[in-house]
């Protein structure tokens, strides 16, 4: 369960950050048009990556009794 949460977090964060970065690169350099909210996705992706250390320490692995 703990590994699944961390892995999901990693995948979601990297996807968000990557799509945001690519969107910012593809945005029209002169008019700034297209690929709106890319910056938000980029920042949110980076920030949520740092939830992983928190999950590592806070989530206790399920112990089989």
């Amino acid at each position, binding site marked *: 369960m703990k590994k699944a949460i961390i892995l999901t977090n990693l995948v979601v964060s990297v996807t968000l950050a990557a799509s945001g*970065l690519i969107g*910012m*690169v593809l*945005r029209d*350099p002169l008019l*700034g048009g297209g690929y*709106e*909210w*890319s*910056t*938000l996705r*980029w*920042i949110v992706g*980076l*920030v949520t990556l*740092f*939830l992983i*250390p*928190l999950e*590592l*320490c*806070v989530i*206790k692995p399920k112990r089989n009794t």
Partner: protein
Amino acid sequence: MRQRQKPDKATTDLMRPVLVTGKLFYIATLIGLLIVGLYAYTFYAQIAQGHAITGQSTPIGAVWGLYVASIVFFIGISHVGIGVSAGARLLNLHYLKPYARIAELLTMVCLPAAVLLITIDIGRPERFLINVMRYGRILAPFVWSAAVISVYFVASSIYLYLSLRRDIALSAQVVTDKRRAFYKWLALGYKDTEEERKLHDKTLWWLALVLIPIMVSVHSVYGLVFGLHAGRPGWFNPFMAPYFVLGAVVNGFATLVVVAALVRWLFGWQKHLGVLAIRNLGRFLSWMTLLYMYFSLAEYVTLFYTPPAGEASVASSLFTGEFSGIFWPAMIGLGIGYFMLFFNQTIFRNQFKLWVTVAGAVLIDVVLFATRYLIVIPSLLNPLLPYPEGKYVPTVYEWAGLIGVFGFAVGAYALFMKFFPIVELPQAAEPEVTEG
């Protein structure tokens, strides 16, 4: 029935700000709220009357002023938290460990303080936020700054929480008032076992390693905000990023020396916070100040030697013009501050006096604020385009806004100390024992 843990002497002493609330705290809180009210009033006045109430103007005059200089100042101080805490962890500098949380908290209050100043500097902050998030371009330094500040703040918060978790669990066992339930919830089931401590230490070690480059990037980005301005004389140069990072290190460590000495004195914690750490911080600060003086010398010699017309105008205003009254005292103050630290740690190290190091650090902090001001304003008042000459004098509203932010920083720091131990507690949190 659950047993509460009896704290040992050291823990009781270090938890005194948490356990005991004196009249001074209430008076200080009231004064703090009044000071923060200055910021709120300035913010309201700017919304109601526009930025005309500040001294800022464009294209004649300076479009950035006291606010931006202060933003750079506060961002600089925010370096020290992770710098000291992560450095102590990665380099095994155990004597610095008691000071780590004091430093980390400086990051946690100074970053929001800088954001408050950014907010008050922007005419319509909600539009800034929405437009940066919606239309931000990859080549815009302000997009970089929004990204690195957000990442640095969240990562530092998580770093602080994980390093504080053990003390939160202990507080839940020691505190007897209504806050007990809050600490219990906040600890999120932390049990102070060997396994948990090892996991936290390992995680914090890796987090510290990742945070160091983020920390450097935060102030590098601010250096690039200025350094990539080809149209501003005195700004456009490739060394702005490392110069800003160095200034931030000096600024941050000077503030830490002052705050650490103050906390030590205020609570009588000489036994818990050894003077060796402050001596070594002072020693490091003196070498960094020397390096900063070297960078400054290189900058001003270049500005003076054969500058292009724009730079010549900026140089003239600094060396002999309207800013010479700030420039020369700042440079002399920097030298005095450096020598105070240098002599106290080296030539007169057997007669080391803590007050000399603290006074040197205060002087360096004031000088660094002045140099932030001198980086921002003179270049704006000497544009390359032939606009009429302008002036910039901060108005009472700008000073009120800045004082309000200082009040916020001090108040937030004090509030944290009211709820959480500012020094890592020596006692282990025992597992709760349930009887009957």
